[in-house]
């Protein structure tokens, strides 16, 4: 019985795999299809993957796409810059005022022009006199100092020392720059009047500091104040630190105008005029027997020179005064009122529970939206990569399918 069943099974299986009738020569249709072009069906993709001509094209296209993506990624990285927040700049300004920033770039003593300039600066800033001494090596000016010849003593902040005779030993770091310093600070505080009063106490009259301008305007919530402080240049940092402690710093700016060249030029002109005056006076003494007209003309010239000298001296003094005293503009505004605290609901546990539930609901929604956003970002952002992955998978699938099977071990 089982043999009969087996025979039926065998016969049926063989019959299932037999082709009745003539073969329809589908190979001709296949050849015609290949010649006419790939079919626009799903198989066309396989044909595209398997055909000799499209595969290199596909590989080249994939490679080109990868190159484009890599280049685009590199361009994006190089194009991104950390931008300095304008708010930070406005709030904190540029580098805080510092005397050392006034120093110029190193100059070459071998250059005759620069050497002469250095010599002139040394002459201008090395002096001894009354009042606040100059600090060579600092960016400070004095108040009405006069020039002295090279080789004078210099004040290093503690004592007078002999100035070096060999100017070539000098480096530019030991020379002064004349810088007119300015700073602006905007403060925010709940009590404008109190901060205003404290700000006025910061100045030191003993150092010649003063308030050049001040105003307190408005009432209550609209009360505002501004002060213009003239403080010693060397105390500018200290004053700004003290001002920062008075309130919340909304903005801060600082800067300086380098007037060194202007001052050096004035000093040179002054020195020249002084020499001329000396020569004219000597000439007047030696020409006492000269005609009256000559003597009068000489006196007139001496007067003109003296006038010019005094004009130069005044300008030098003015610049020194500006350099010695920095200008600080302080603007004080009221701080915005804090939001009123909500009245606490003292209804008890129920209200507490509802409040927490509401917060949890909000947080949950936030997390949900974040999660969805991540998924969308991954999908959209990686769309190109998904496409490449699909291509690779199809390509490998085709390779697996089209690859000839291992050589069969025949037994017949």
């Amino acid at each position, binding site marked *: 019985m089982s043999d009969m069943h087996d025979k039926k099974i065998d016969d049926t299986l063989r019959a299932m795999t037999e082709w009745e009738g003539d073969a*329809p020569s589908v190979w001709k249709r296949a050849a015609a299809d290949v010649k006419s072009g790939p079919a626009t069906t799903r198989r066309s993709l396989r044909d595209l993957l398997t055909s000799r001509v499209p595969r290199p094209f596909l590989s080249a296209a994939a490679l080109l796409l990868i190159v484009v993506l890599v280049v685009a990624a590199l361009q994006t990285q190089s194009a991104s810059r950390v931008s300095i927040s304008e708010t930070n700049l406005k709030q904190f300004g540029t580098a805080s005022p510092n005397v050392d920033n006034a120093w110029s770039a190193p100059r070459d003593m071998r250059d005759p022009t620069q050497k002469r300039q250095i010599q002139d600066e040394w002459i201008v800033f090395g002096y001894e006199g009354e009042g606040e001494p100059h600090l060579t090596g600092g960016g400070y000016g004095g108040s009405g100092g006069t020039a002295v010849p090279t080789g004078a003593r210099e004040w290093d902040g503690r004592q007078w020392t002999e100035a070096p005779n060999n100017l070539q030993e000098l480096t530019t770091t030991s020379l002064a720059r004349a810088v007119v310093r300015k700073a602006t600070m905007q403060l925010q505080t709940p009590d404008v009047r109190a901060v205003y009063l404290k700000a006025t106490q910061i100045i030191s009259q003993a150092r010649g500091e003063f308030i050049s301008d001040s105003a307190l305007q408005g009432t209550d919530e609209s009360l505002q104040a501004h002060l213009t402080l003239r403080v010693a240049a060397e105390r500018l940092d200290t004053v700004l630190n003290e001002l920062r402690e008075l309130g919340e710093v909304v903005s801060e700016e600082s800067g300086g105008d380098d007037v060194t060249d202007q001052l050096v030029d004035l000093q040179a002109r002054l020195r020249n005029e002084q020499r001329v005056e000396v020569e004219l006076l000597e000439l007047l003494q030696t020409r006492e027997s000269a005609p009256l007209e000559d003597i009068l003309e000489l006196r007139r010239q001496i007067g003109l020179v003296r006038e010019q000298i005094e004009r130069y001296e005044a300008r030098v003094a003015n610049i020194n005064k500006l350099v010695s005293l920095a200008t600080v503009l302080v603007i004080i505004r009221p701080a915005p009122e804090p939001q009123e605290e909500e009245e606490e609901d003292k209804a008890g546990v129920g209200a507490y529970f509802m409040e927490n539930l509401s917060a949890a609901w909000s947080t949950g929604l936030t997390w949900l939206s974040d999660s969805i956003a991540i998924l969308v970002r991954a999908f959209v952002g990686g769309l190109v990569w998904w496409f490449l992955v699909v291509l690779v998978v199809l390509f490998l699938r085709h390779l697996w399918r089209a690859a000839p099977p291992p050589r069969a071990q025949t037994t017949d």
Partner: protein
Amino acid sequence: MRMERDAADLASLRAVASGDTDALGQLAARHERPMLGLARGLLGGSRSDAEDAVQTTWASVIRSSGRFEGRSSVKTWLYHILVNECRDLAKRRRVVANAESAPDHIAATSEQVNDDDDPGRIRRAVLALPQAQREILLLCFHNGLTHEQAASVLGIPAGTLKTRLRAGYATLRQFLTTEAPA
């Protein structure tokens, strides 16, 4: 003899790679008919589906002929492609699910199809087998392939093929004995 056939197939395939359409005809003359038969069996008896599968196979052969590396015989390679095409086609047309409503059923040489007789029931049982067993049964009983060649076509070891063949055959036998018509 077999080696001569393999050599002839290889020569024809090389010629196809160089664009010789007649060489393709020679190849088809030797293999198209059995390929159609196998495809019909794999696709539930549909002649039209079998023709489509074989046509697609030939198209793949034409395009891939230059990449044949000779690691197997040309015949095995052809059937490997054919089996894959039949799988794809079956997926698209759900041949197994609609086997009983296929437009072209297998016609016996001298008798009409009768699902109630043993051959019909056996056909139904074969189509109801898992795909792997069904393919193995049909390939192994296909007149054109030996068991070793069938194993190569399917890409499985010969031992695995024989194991699955026995299992499928046993299932059919059991089906036939337990569901014998009254």
